[in-house]
C-alpha cells in the first residue's frame, strides 16, 4: 500500500513538474472527451426532438405527399369518397408551386422560392402555425382576407418588406398574383424536413387564391393531410390509398413518421459518434506524442530509478499512474468543454433543420466521454510507457544520454497491433456500426487497418519532411535552419502532420464538396445556356410583339433565343406501353425506388421547344446526342435521364406525350444527363415540330420562353425595365437561382463543418503541443543563437518559417486527401464531375499554416525572450 502511495505521489509530482507539457497532454485528452460529450449530448437532444411530436410533424394522422406533378382532381375525389364512407374523419389539401417572389415597389428585388396555399381553418390538424410577427397571431387571422399572405423570415429580409407591403408572386406557368403581407411565420410552418429549412424563401396563402397558378393543369393538390378516429383507421386509410394512388405518393401515418424519425436519429447518432472518434484519434496522437517526449526527456531519471533497483514493470506502473493523472485532468476539462460545445452544436442543428431542439443534460454521454478519455489515454500512452520501462540503468552515468533503447521490436510490434485491434473493437462497439459477433472481427480488422493507414501516412510525412529538408536553402539562413531542424525531428513531425492533415481533411472535404456542387450548378447554367435571364409569358401574339418591342429598346441585350413550353403535356406511353404500366412494373420488380419514380414523374410533365434553326443548345448527354440544326422539323427529342432510366427509355424509343385529347409522338435521339440544368422543361424538342403538332397554341398551359443574354453592367436595370413593361411575365434573373442554390448548399455544409471544426481544433491543440514540446527542447538552441548575437526577431523568423513549412505540408496533404474524398463522393454518390477551385483550397492551406504558425508563436514567444545565460546554465 505504501509503495502504491509512493508511486502515486511520484506520478502526481511528475505531472505537476511537467507544467506546460502536462497541461498540453491533458488538453489532448480534453479535446477527445469534449467531442464525445458534445456530440453525444447533441445526438440525444436531437433524438428526443425528432421523435417527440410525430403527430405534429405529420400534420395529421396520415400525410400524402405526391410527386411534384401533384394529385389529380380524380384522386382528390377518391379521398372525398373515403370521407363520405367515414374511413377518415376529415382531410385538408395544400397546393405548392415554385415561385418568383417580388416586391411590388422595387421591380428588381426578387427571390426564388415557393408559394403554398393552405386552408387556414384546418391546416395543420395538429400543432398550430402562429406568426413570429405580429407575435402569436394564428393563421386563421393572418389569412382572413383573400389577398393575405404570410412570408418566411428569409423572404421578409431579402425583399426588405414591411407588414402591409404588397408582393407579386409569379408561378412557373406565367401566372402572377398580388398579395398583402400580414405576417412572418417560422420556417417550420411549411414543414419540419430538411428541404423546408434549406429552401426557406416562401409565401403562404389561402388555397382558394391559388387556383390560377394551376390553370389548365389537372392538379387537385400537392399535399393532403388526413384526420382519422384512431391509429387503426389511419393504417387502413394508408392501405387503401397505397392501392388507389398507384404507389408513387409518399403516404405516412404517425407510426411511420415515428419510425423514420427513430431511424434518422439513429443514423445521426452514428455520424455524431464517428465524428467524436475522429477527434479522439487526433487527441490520441497528441497523448502518444506527449508521453513519448515525457519518457524521452526523463530517460536519465528512469535510469537512475532503475539503478536504485526499480524494475521495468514498476516503471510502467509509475508512468501509467502519471498518465491516469493526466487523463483525470483532461476528463474534467473535457466534460466542461463538451457541455459548452453541445450548446453550440444544438444551435446549429436547430438553425438548419427547422426542428426546435430542447437542450437537456444527460448522464450517458458524459460517462461515455470520461470512459473513452481514460481508455484512450491508457491505450495511446501504453507504447511510450513501454519504451520508458526499457531504459537501461547505464544511461544514468552518461551526461549526454538521449533516446530510449529499441528492444524487442517484434514483441513491441505485436503489442501495438493487439492494442490497435482492441481500439478498433471498442470503436465499433461505441459507434454501433456493426452488431453481433461480426463486430469483433470488423473491429479488429478496422483497428489494424487504421493503424496501418496511419502508419503509412506518417511514413509518407516523414518522407516529405526528409525531402523538404534536402531542399536548397537559396542562401537564406532561416530556410536552412528550418530545413535542418525539420530533418532532425522528422519522426515527431510525422505524427504532428498526421494530426493536422486529419483535421484539415475533415473540414476540407465538406468545404470542397460544397464548393464543388456550387461550381457544378454554376457551370451547368453557363455551359448549357450562355444566358443570364429567362422570360416566361403566356403564349399570345400580342404578348410576343410587346416583348419584341421591349427587347429592341434594351441597352444591355446581347443575345436572345426563343422557345415554347408545352407545360401540360405528360408522357403517356413508351414504345406503345402506357407509362402507368411501366411505373407499376418498375415498382413490382423493384427495378426503381419510389424516390426515383417520384423524380421521374415530376419530369414526365412538360416539353420545352427550342428554336434549333437559329440557336445551338448544348446539354450534357448520357447517351445519344444533342439536338441541332438537322433536327429542325423532326420529332426528335432529348429526354431527361431521370425519366429515361427508371422507365427503360433508350435512344430510338418512341414516346407519346398527351395533352387533353391530342397525342404527339416523339423519337428519342439523346438522353440528357441526370443533373442537367434546365429551367422550364427536362425534355427538349424542336419548336417547329411542336408548333405543327399544336403544342404551342395560345392556352394557359402553353407559354413562350425567351432566353436572353444581357451585359452584366446593364443586368439589374434591364430586368427592372422588363418587369415594368411585362407585368404578367415571369422574368427570371438566373443568378438568383445560383444564389438560392448556393445558400442552401452553404447551410447544408455548415453542420458537418461545425463538427469537423472540433477535430480541426483537436489538430490545432496537437500542433501547439508538439511545437511547444519542441520549443522546450530547443530552449538551449535559442539560447545559443542569442549568445552568438541573434536578435529575438531573427529567432522568431526562423521558427515562423519552420512552422509555416510544417503547416503547409500538413494542410497540403490534408487538402489532397479531401480532394480524393470529394472525387469519390462526386462520382459515386452525386454523379457530378469534380472541379476544384483555388478559392476553397488556398484558404484551407492558409488555415493549416496559420494554426501551425500560431501554435509555434504561442510557445516560441516566451522562449525567445529568455536571457541566454538562464537557458544555457540552468536548463
Amino acid at each position: 500500500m505504501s509503495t502504491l502511495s509512493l508511486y502515486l505521489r511520484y506520478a502526481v509530482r511528475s505531472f505537476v513538474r511537467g507544467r506546460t507539457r502536462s497541461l498540453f497532454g491533458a488538453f489532448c485528452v480534453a479535446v477527445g472527451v469534449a467531442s464525445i460529450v458534445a456530440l453525444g449530448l447533441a445526438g440525444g437532444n436531437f433524438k428526443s426532438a425528432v421523435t417527440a411530436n410525430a403527430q405534429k410533424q405529420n400534420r395529421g394522422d396520415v400525410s400524402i405527399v405526391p410527386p411534384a406533378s401533384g394529385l389529380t382532381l380524380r384522386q382528390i375525389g377518391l379521398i372525398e369518397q373515403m370521407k363520405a364512407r367515414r374511413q377518415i374523419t376529415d382531410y385538408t389539401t395544400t397546393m405548392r408551386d415554385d415561385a418568383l417572389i417580388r416586391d411590388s415597389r422595387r421591380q428588381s428585388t426578387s427571390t426564388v422560392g415557393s408559394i403554398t396555399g393552405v386552408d387556414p381553418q384546418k391546416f395543420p390538424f395538429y400543432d398550430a402555425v402562429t406568426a413570429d410577427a405580429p407575435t402569436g397571431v394564428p393563421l386563421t387571422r393572418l389569412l382572413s382576407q383573400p389577398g393575405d399572405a404570410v412570408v418566411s423570415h428569409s423572404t421578409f429580409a431579402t425583399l426588405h418588406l414591411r407588414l402591409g407591403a404588397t408582393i407579386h408572386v409569379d408561378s412557373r406557368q406565367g401566372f402572377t398574383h398580388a398579395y398583402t403581407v400580414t405576417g412572418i411565420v417560422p420556417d417550420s410552418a411549411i414543414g419540419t424536413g430538411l428541404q423546408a429549412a434549406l429552401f426557406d424563401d416562401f409565401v403562404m396563402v389561402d388555397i382558394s387564391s391559388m387556383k390560377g397558378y394551376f390553370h389548365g393543369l389537372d392538379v387537385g393538390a400537392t399535399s393532403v393531410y388526413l384526420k382519422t378516429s384512431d391509429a387503426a383507421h389511419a393504417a387502413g386509410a394508408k392501405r387503401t390509398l397505397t392501392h388507389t394512388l398507384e404507389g408513387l405518393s409518399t403516404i405516412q401515418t404517425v407510426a411511420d413518421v415515428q419510425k423514420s424519425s427513430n431511424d434518422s436519429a439513429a443514423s445521426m447518432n452514428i455520424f455524431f459518434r464517428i465524428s467524436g472518434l475522429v477527434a479522439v484519434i487526433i487527441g490520441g496522437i497528441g497523448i502518444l506524442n506527449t508521453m513519448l517526449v515525457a519518457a524521452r526527456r526523463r530517460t536519465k531519471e528512469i535510469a537512475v530509478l532503475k539503478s536504485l533497483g526499480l524494475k521495468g514493470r514498476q516503471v510502467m506502473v509509475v508512468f501509467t499512474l502519471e498518465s491516469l493523472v493526466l487523463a483525470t485532468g483532461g476528463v474534467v476539462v473535457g466534460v466542461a468543454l463538451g457541455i459548452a460545445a453541445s450548446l453550440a452544436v444544438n444551435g446549429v442543428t436547430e438553425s438548419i433543420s427547422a426542428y426546435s431542439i430542447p437542450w437537456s443534460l444527460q448522464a450517458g454521454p458524459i460517462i461515455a466521454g470520461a470512459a473513452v478519455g481514460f481508455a484512450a489515454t491508457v491505450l495511446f500512452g501504453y507504447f511510450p510507457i513501454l519504451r520508458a520501462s526499457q531504459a537501461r540503468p547505464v544511461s544514468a552515468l552518461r551526461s549526454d544520454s538521449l533516446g530510449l533503447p529499441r528492444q524487442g521490436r517484434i514483441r513491441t510490434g505485436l503489442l501495438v497491433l493487439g492494442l490497435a485491434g482492441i481500439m478498433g473493437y471498442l470503436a465499433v462497439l461505441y459507434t454501433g456500426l456493426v452488431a453481433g459477433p461480426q463486430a469483433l472481427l470488423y473491429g479488429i480488422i478496422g483497428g489494424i487497418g487504421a493503424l496501418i493507414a496511419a502508419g503509412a501516412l506518417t511514413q509518407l510525412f516523414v518522407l516529405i519532411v526528409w525531402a523538404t529538408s534536402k531542399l536548397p536553402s537559396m542562401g537564406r539562413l532561416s530556410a536552412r535552419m528550418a530545413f535542418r531542424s525539420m530533418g532532425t525531428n522528422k519522426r515527431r513531425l510525422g505524427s504532428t502532420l498526421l494530426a493536422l492533415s486529419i483535421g484539415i481533411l475533415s473540414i476540407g472535404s465538406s468545404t470542397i464538396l460544397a464548393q464543388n456542387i456550387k461550381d457544378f450548378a454554376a457551370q451547368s447554367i453557363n455551359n448549357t445556356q450562355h444566358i443570364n435571364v429567362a422570360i416566361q409569358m403566356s403564349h399570345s401574339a400580342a404578348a410576343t410583339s410587346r416583348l419584341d418591342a421591349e427587347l429592341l429598346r434594351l441597352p444591355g441585350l446581347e443575345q436572345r433565343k426563343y422557345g415554347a413550353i408545352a407545360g401540360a403535356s405528360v408522357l403517356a406511353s413508351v414504345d406503345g406501353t402506357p407509362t402507368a404500366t411501366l411505373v407499376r412494373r418498375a415498382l413490382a420488380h423493384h427495378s426503381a425506388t419510389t424516390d426515383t419514380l417520384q423524380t421521374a414523374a415530376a419530369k414526365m410533365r412538360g416539353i420545352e421547344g427550342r428554336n434549333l434553326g437559329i440557336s445551338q443548345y448544348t446539354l450534357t448527354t448520357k447517351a445519344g446526342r444533342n439536338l441541332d440544326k438537322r433536327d429542325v422539323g423532326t420529332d426528335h427529342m432529348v429526354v431527361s435521364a431521370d425519366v429515361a432510366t427508371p422507365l427503360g427509355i433508350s435512344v430510338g424509343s418512341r414516346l407519346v406525350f398527351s395533352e387533353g385529347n391530342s397525342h404527339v409522338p416523339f423519337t428519342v435521339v439523346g438522353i440528357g444527363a441526370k443533373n442537367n440544368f434546365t429551367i422550364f422543361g427536362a425534355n427538349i424538342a424542336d419548336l417547329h415540330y411542336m408548333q405543327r403538332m399544336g403544342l404551342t397554341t395560345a392556352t394557359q398551359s402553353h407559354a413562350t420562353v425567351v432566353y436572353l443574354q444581357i451585359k452584366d453592367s446593364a443586368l439589374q436595370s434591364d430586368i427592372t425595365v422588363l418587369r415594368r413593361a411585362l407585368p404578367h411575365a415571369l422574368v427570371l434573373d438566373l443568378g438568383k437561382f445560383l444564389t438560392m442554390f448556393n445558400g442552401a448548399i452553404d447551410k447544408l455544409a455548415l453542420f458537418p463543418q461545425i463538427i469537423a471544426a472540433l477535430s480541426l481544433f483537436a489538430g490545432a491543440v496537437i500542433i501547439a503541443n508538439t511545437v511547444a514540446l519542441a520549443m522546450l527542447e530547443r530552449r538551449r538552441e535559442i539560447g545559443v543563437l542569442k549568445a552568438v548575437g541573434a536578435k529575438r526577431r531573427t529567432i522568431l523568423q526562423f521558427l515562423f518559417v519552420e512552422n509555416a513549412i510544417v503547416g503547409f505540408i500538413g494542410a497540403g496533404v490534408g487538402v489532397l486527401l479531401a480532394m480524393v474524398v470529394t472525387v469519390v463522393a462526386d462520382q459515386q454518390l452525386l454523379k457530378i464531375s469534380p472541379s476544384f477551385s483555388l478559392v476553397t483550397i488556398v484558404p484551407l492551406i492558409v488555415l493549416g499554416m496559420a494554426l501551425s504558425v500560431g501554435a509555434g508563436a504561442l510557445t516560441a514567444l516566451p522562449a525567445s525572450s529568455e536571457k541566454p545565460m538562464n537557458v544555457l546554465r540552468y536548463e
Partner: protein
Amino acid sequence: MATALNIYAAGFVPGAAPAAIEVHQITKEYGEGDSRVQVLKGVDLTIARGEMLAIMGPSGSGKSTLLGAISGLDTVTSGQVIINGTDITRLGENALARVRNRNIGFVFQTFNLISTLTAQENVELPVLLDRKSSFNPSKRAQELLDLVGLSHRRKHRPGQMSGGEQQRVAIARALANDPEVIFGDEPTGNLDSTNGEAVMQLLTDLKEETGKTLVLVTHDPRIAAQCDRAVYMHDGRFLDDADVQQSMRSSR
C-alpha cells in the same frame, strides 16, 4: 595564421576606450522578498586590451554569473559594464544582440553547438546573423576551421565529433566576427587533459598572435597560471591581492 585575423574589423575603433572592459559596482540578485539571494555584491573590474584574465573561485562564488553579466548574456541588478566605451547595461534587446554578435565571442563548457548544423555552418552562423558583415561567411568559416585545425571536419555535425573537436569548432565560431573579447566559461571543463591542453594552447596562441582580450572562468589553477592575471571570487566579491597571492601559493 595571424594575417587571417583582422583586429580592426567589425567596427572596432582603436583608442576609443583605454580598457577593453570596465566593470563598476555591479550587483546581481535573484528571487524576491525572503528568498532573495545576492550573487554579485558590488564588483569592480578593469580588463586591459589584449589581457588574458582568469576568474577563479569555488562553486557558487558567483564567477559564472559575473561572466554572464559582463558578456551581455545576462542582465545585472545595478552597476555598469562598459565594453569598448559602451555601457551595455543600458542597451536595448536588439543593440545588446548586436554587441554579442560583433564585439564578443563566447566559449561554453558544454560547447553548445547547434546540433542540426555542420561544423562549417555553425561557424558561419554569427557572420550570417550580421547583415553588415564584411566577411564572406563560407570563406571566413573555412579560414577559421583551418586555424583550429579542423578543415577536414567541415561537413560533420556536432554529434559526429569528439568533445575536443566540438570545443575547437566553438572557438572558431567565437572568432567568426573577429570580436575584441572572447569569454570562456570553463572551456576545458568537459574535456580530457590532452584535449584540454590543446584547447588552452589554441587560446593562448590566439592571444599572442592577435592580441585578443580573453576572459576565462576556471577551476583549474594550471589554466589560471597561463593567464596574465587571475582574480579570485568568494561569496560574490573579489578577494584582495594579498588573499589572492595567498590563495595562489596554497594552490601550487
